[in-house]
């Protein structure tokens, strides 16, 4: 039976070039026309430790990074020790003959040992041994019968025209690796018919940035935190050319508060963080709910509690997002399942934030945010709806910023608009924005006013419920088991569902939530 997909695992110590080698391989897969999916296991160390990345490519759509690899590339002994037993029957292990030893007792049947003097070969081209992972990469490319021109183009992308000699050296290094495979019996002969039609390859975080740009984001304030930092990095490079102010700030308190200020001033504003940073943003996001200021807050989850496991994925912050802030304010939480939805739901989040004048949270996680996936071409023609704005030319005395309406939404005016001056207040306030909290709170009629104002804000949930993506049922209508899921678990869940159907005939479906809303009494999912 001919193979439909291939899986490679690359391991070494931090600093060995594992992630850059894996990125190159993912790019080579995508340019070969494979549907590609990566997962990186890494730690909070800059040097040392054990890191590995798994890259899977398939002729058909893939839904996870796969389980056991066809090839393991060992850049150190630890990788051999940990992963050699996982290689599938008929697979291969690529390793440095000098200093790395396989243990044949731990291997499955017919696993080929491709020992190549990686370091020595690399040193024939350059005095340092930096290119030994490139030699190994060339071996993997040859084992899978991938087209070598994608190796060359991947290297050109990395080093560009500025360093043609480095590109050339790396190409030569990769060829040495391929020659090593030829000497050791040639490729795995899986016989995949690669289309060589390049596919778009990106992380969830990158897709999210593209969605924000498409929607017209003009302000991003962020404090670095894994796994949200790549949003800051990508936007810092690409934002300014699109008029986006990208600001690394002193802490997440400043990040959220600046975003609130920018949203109040009338631009589409966003901040991004992980759970720890989001915890610091909690008071200020409530302020946006109270002042009815539009903004988008991105929460890319990692393992908690507290600092937790900074480099491991977890879906543990849903309660944090749902419950962020004292008291109650209306919010929607959009939970993309894949990069396409990172793009589309982020773009939609900006519309919802402005239509309903309230924070919209986009919740993702490390698995989706940092993993590379191939995607279809993204359509930048996203609808842009800015919500109700007060007309120019009125008289400030008649303008009530927090006018009580059926929808809960009051016309908004941005600073600079003549005649609509008002104060956005984080204390409870009247329609005019005069505070109830100070002298008025003692008077019974103003207590009633507070109740009306709170209900006005919470009525926005009715519209949000209508305008946000509905829960979806995937799989057979009648099933033995239903998985309830949101976010990045979508892919692996679908793969598991298909697998148990095929292997055991068990019918499973999934109920999936692209939107998570705070529920109110009496509301239902239907």
């Amino acid at each position, binding site marked *: 039976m001919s193979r439909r997909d291939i899986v490679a695992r690359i391991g070494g110590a931090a600093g060995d070039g594992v992630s850059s080698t894996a990125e190159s391989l993912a790019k080579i897969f995508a340019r070969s026309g494979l549907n590609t999916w990566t997962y990186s296991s890494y730690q909070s160390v800059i040097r040392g430790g054990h890191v590995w990345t798994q890259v899977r490519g398939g002729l058909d759509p893939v839904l996870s990074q796969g389980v056991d690899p066809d090839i393991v590339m060992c850049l150190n002994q630890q990788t051999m020790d940990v992963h050699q037993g996982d290689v599938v029957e008929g697979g291969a292990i690529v390793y440095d003959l000098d200093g790395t030893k396989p243990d044949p007792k731990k291997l499955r049947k017919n696993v080929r040992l491709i020992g190549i003097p990686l370091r020595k070969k690399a040193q024939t081209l350059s005095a340092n041994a930096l290119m030994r992972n490139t030699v190994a990469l060339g071996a993997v490319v040859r084992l899978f019968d991938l087209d070598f021109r994608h190796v060359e183009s991947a290297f050109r992308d990395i080093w560009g025209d500025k360093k043609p000699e480095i590109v050339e050296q790396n190409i030569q290094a990769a060829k040495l690796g391929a020659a090593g495979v030829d000497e050791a019996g040639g490729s795995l002969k899986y016989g995949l018919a690669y289309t060589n039609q390049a596919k778009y390859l990106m992380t969830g975080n990158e897709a999210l940035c593209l969605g924000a740009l498409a929607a017209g984001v003009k302000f991003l304030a962020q404090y670095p935190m894994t796994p949200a930092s790549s949003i800051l990095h990508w936007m810092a490079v690409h934002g300014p050319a699109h008029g986006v102010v990208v600001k690394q700030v002193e802490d997440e308190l400043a990040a959220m508060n600046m975003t609130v*200020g920018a949203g109040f001033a009338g631009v589409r504003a966003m901040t991004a963080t992980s759970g720890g940073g989001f915890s610091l943003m909690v008071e200020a996001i409530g302020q946006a709910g109270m002042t009815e200021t539009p903004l988008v807050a991105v929460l890319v989850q990692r393992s908690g509690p507290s600092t937790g496991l900074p480099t491991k994925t977890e879906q543990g912050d849903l309660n944090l997002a749902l419950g962020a802030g004292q008291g109650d304010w209306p919010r929607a939480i959009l939970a993309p399942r894949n990069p396409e939805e990172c793009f589309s739901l982020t773009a939609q989040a900006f519309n919802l934030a402005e239509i309903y004048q309230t924070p919209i949270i986009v919740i993702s996680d490390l698995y989706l945010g940092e993993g590379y996936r191939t995607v279809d071409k993204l359509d930048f023609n996203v609808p842009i709806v800015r919500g109700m704005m007060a007309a120019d030319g009125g008289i400030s005395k008649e303008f009530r910023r927090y006018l009580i309406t059926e929808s809960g939404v009051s016309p908004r005016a941005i600073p600079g608009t003549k005649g609509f001056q008002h104060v956005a207040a984080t204390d409870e306030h009247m329609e005019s924005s005069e505070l109830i909290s100070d002298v008025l709170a003692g008077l019974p009629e103003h207590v009633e006013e507070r109740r009306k104002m709170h209900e006005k804000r919470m009525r926005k949930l009715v519209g949000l419920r209508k305008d946000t993506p509905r829960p979806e049922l995937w799989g057979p209508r009648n099933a033995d088991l239903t998985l309830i899921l949101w976010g990045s678990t979508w892919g692996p869940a679908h793969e598991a569902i298909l697998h148990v159907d095929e292997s055991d005939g068990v019918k499973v479906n999934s109920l999936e939530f692209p939107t998570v809303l705070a529920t109110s009494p009496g509301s239902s999912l239907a």
Partner: protein
Amino acid sequence: MKLEFEMDTYKSEIKPTWCPGCGDFAVLRALQTAIHALQLEPWNVVIVSGIGCSSNLPHFLSTYGFHAIHGRALPVAEGVKLANPELQVIVTGGDGDGYGIGVGHFIHAMRRNIDITYLVMNNQIYGLTTGQASPTSEKGMKTKSTPIAGVIENPVDPISLALASGATYVARGFSGDVKGMSELVKNGITHHGFSLIDCMSPCVTYNKVNTYDFFRERVYDLAKEGHDPSDMKAAFAKAIEWPFVQRDRIPLGLFYRTEDVPTYEDLEPALKKGPPVHQPLGVTDADALLDEFL
């Protein structure tokens, strides 16, 4: 010549809620006088405040305002300014708000030299929470939260802190001198860069030490004593006079000013295209953006 905007144009319908005699009335008056003298268009002014008695100030004027949470007025104001640098952004608040809970933002806003005017109504006590020690309470002061030994920490010195952090306009006013304070505020607003005006604004209810009389007996005018505000070393020497060196003389006026430092807005690449709030939404070069991923 008839002015476009009368003094009253800048007043809102909401009456201040401060205690009779509160120093904050003078700061409100000084600010109103300054923006009237400059004839600023009320719709192009945004006054951002935090929480505390003094932070209610934006409600009493007819400009745009944002009454933020405790200690976060500066980052909110920075967001406003970066979204639309054409707006005149003024921040008002108290010593607890700016020098206590918000002191981190205070330092970072100054090192950015973002073009914002910051008025701190410094009464050296927490008023709205009924009389606890503040970060500028003098050592030894007995308050509700320091009833036995008095304050045993050193006070924050906002003037030295501002000089050390990169503020390019640093001044101290006093609510007993509205005219002088108003001049300082006016010049702070026209200054191109971050301006701090630390306004000594007595709390008549909870601070029985740093009263109007306390200041009247001690204040002197820096300009009259020949201080050169372009000299940073001299500014530091004047800044530490009170409360660290002695307690008898308190300098008022302009400590330091320089126009030689570019603002954050001058250097921010995205603002080269003009105010973000006026930029078209969406992208025109989607294919170029996507090519990077192919």
